[in-house]
């Protein structure tokens, strides 16, 4: 027992080398998902009817495909038609596309729950549509989306080990390398789990802190 704990502790620093890449994958994928998600959400609310149909199909597709399959299509499939992305970019595209479909739902829900009267109120003061979006709708949408966004971020974080499948040296890959030489799968995978668990907590509380900074009466984001 003591041996196992000691073994885990001595090898955690090595596994930590994979943490940075896991965080990079997560942040980049979520960022890509956010840009696409906001775009899709806006098209779905303010777009023309054919546009709404197009983005609905987009959401429908990317919510319906497992990330690993999507990842393999991007990494192994697209090169056959001349689109070559490196392993890192492939992971970010795969996870980002999937996340964008979910994030679009978060932002759409947030914008819709703000209601049309806020837009009317902004316009009735003589503000332009853009000014109203930027000064009125966006600040409220950010607050309303934060809980869902936090959730989505942590989900992507926990999906990031899929990068292992295309040979990226992240936490799980380093763990696997250790197991090959030490034959201690239980200890190593347990250490990996621990690292992900701690990472999850760090981001969870980071976003909770950010939410508390944005909190105003009437927008109780953190639920406290």
């Amino acid at each position, binding site marked *: 027992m003591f041996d196992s704990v000691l073994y885990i502790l001595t090898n955690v620093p090595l596994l930590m080398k994979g943490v940075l890449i896991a965080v990079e994958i997560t942040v980049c994928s979520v960022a890509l998902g956010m840009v696409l998600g906001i775009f899709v959400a806006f098209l779905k609310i303010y777009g023309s009817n054919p546009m709404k149909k197009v983005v609905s199909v987009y959401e429908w597709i990317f919510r319906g495909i497992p990330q690993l399959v999507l990842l393999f299509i991007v990494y192994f499939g697209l090169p056959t038609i001349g689109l070559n992305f490196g392993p890192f970019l492939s992971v970010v595209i795969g996870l980002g596309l999937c996340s964008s479909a979910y994030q679009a739902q978060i932002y759409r829900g947030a914008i819709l729950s703000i209601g049309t*009267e*806020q837009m*009317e*109120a*902004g*316009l*009735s*003061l*003589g*503000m*332009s549509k853009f*000014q109203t979006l930027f*000064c*009125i709708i966006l*600040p*409220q949408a950010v*607050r309303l989306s934060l809980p869902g966004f936090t959730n989505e971020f942590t989900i992507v974080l926990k999906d990031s080990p899929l990068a292992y499948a295309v040979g990226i040296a992240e936490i799980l890959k380093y763990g696997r390398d250790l197991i090959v030489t030490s034959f201690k799968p239980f200890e190593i995978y347990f250490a990996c789990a621990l690292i992900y668990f701690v990472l999850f907590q760090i981001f969870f509380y980071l976003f909770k802190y950010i939410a508390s900074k944005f909190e*105003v*009466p*009437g*927008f109780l984001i953190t639920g406290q």
Partner: protein
Amino acid sequence: MPLVRVEDVKKSFGKNTVLDGVSFTIEKGEVKVIIGPSGTGKSTLLRCVNMLAPPDSGKIWLQETELTNPKTNMHQMRQKIGMVFQHFALFKHLKAIDNVALGLVKVKGMNRSDAYAKAKRDMQKVGLEEHADKYPAQLSGGQQQRVGIARALAMDPLLMLFDEPTSALDPELIGEVLQVMQNLAKEGMTMICVSHEMGFAKSVANEIIFMEHGHILEASAPQKMFSNPENERTRSFLHKIAELYGESL
């Protein structure tokens, strides 16, 4: 020249005709109260006047500017038309004073200190100077609606539109909002109010407009409207309101 001229305005949402040829004029300093059953286009009519819901056909003028002309800069014109909403529509992420000052800073381009000084005066006007730093969620419905009025007043409008300003309020909060509206009317503000507050209509309205199915059925001074309405439909509607509010008309 009338302040506002509405000429044969028609508006449909899909197959549903909401306004079917509405015309009226309002002179500077006049107060008109629009009444009528729900779904007859009262709120839509207000939204046509400030072009939030542009009419399908017909014309609307504010002084000599035709609002229905696509070339008209509506952002500029809407500064002259204040609007007060049924559900207040305050910007919930901003303090009361920020709500009032926002238009001054963003639309009129005033510097912050001038804008906030002006906003403070408008908050005083509605009796809420001590609540300036509260968020909408910390105010009662009546107070929120008064902030809504102050926000519209801050832009120094020529005309104020009230879309059922008291219908979302508890009965005991209605009085404070009507008081502010009454003061406004006395100061000579031109107002179009969609409201079923008959006491208010009686005391300040120059004319009551009764609408049904997208038409104006009858428009006359409150005394005549209440004592001797011409239209049978108006009579029965007023009767129902009187029953509901327990007022003898």
